[in-house]
């Protein structure tokens, strides 16, 4: 189901909000959509806002973390924004700590973090 989750572009940053309960097929299509968007144009950062999710199981977590790692291979840093406390606690208790992606409290923080990351690679 491509296109179920809209991907916005702001300059060289991709912005997505996952606010619906993710079906497996949607999650996989989302990964493909993001990667092809990165492929099309130079992208330095990817922001995934997950503040709307009250549950992330290992399947969805894996898709998100993998997307982050794949994006990094293509030169794009990923920031997960707005993860809820209970989601974070649950993932970590399951032994899943999403290595390889950055995290931020909200969208503003996420954008600021991306800027910092870009500056630090330039110097």
């Amino acid at each position: 189901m491509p296109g179920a989750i809209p991907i916005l572009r702001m300059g060289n940053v991709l912005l997505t909000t996952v606010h619906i309960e993710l079906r497996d097929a949607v999650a996989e299509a989302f990964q493909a959509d993001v990667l092809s968007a990165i492929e099309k144009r130079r992208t330095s950062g990817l922001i995934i806002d997950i503040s709307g999710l009250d549950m992330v199981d290992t399947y969805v977590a894996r898709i998100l973390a993998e997307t982050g790692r794949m994006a990094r291979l293509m030169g794009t840093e990923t920031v997960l924004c707005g993860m809820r406390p209970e989601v974070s606690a649950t993932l970590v208790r399951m032994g899943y700590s999403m290595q390889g992606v950055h995290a931020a409290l909200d969208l503003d923080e996420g954008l600021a973090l991306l800027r910092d990351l870009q500056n630090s690679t330039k110097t």
Partner: protein
Amino acid sequence: MKIDTEDDVILVRRAVRDLAQAHGFDVFATAALTTAASELTRNVWVHAGKGIAVIEEVASDEQEGVRVTFQDEGPGIADIDRVLAGGFSTARSMGLGLSGSRRLVDAFDLRSIVGRGTTVEIVKWKAI
């Protein structure tokens, strides 16, 4: 509840979440139970193709909680210890499904006979 399509993963966890919330579980306990239910429902669907989930309330002398039982007639699990230790990787569940779920709930009981099927029972008590 029947499990035989991918959508059932969502339906089962929604039912579990509703019952947990109705029992006054806090957000952490609700997320833990719902996530475990999601993992285990996906396990049934991916490995056995179909099965059932029974969601019910339980009470003991001191506390109340929610129990979910997953039952399938799939291939079963040969090496339960290894699966529960985590790291047993299959195509879709990355091996954290079972071991991870166990860490999220208060009681976890897994019985499996190779070739006959698997039953997993989980209980989450409400934090006082």
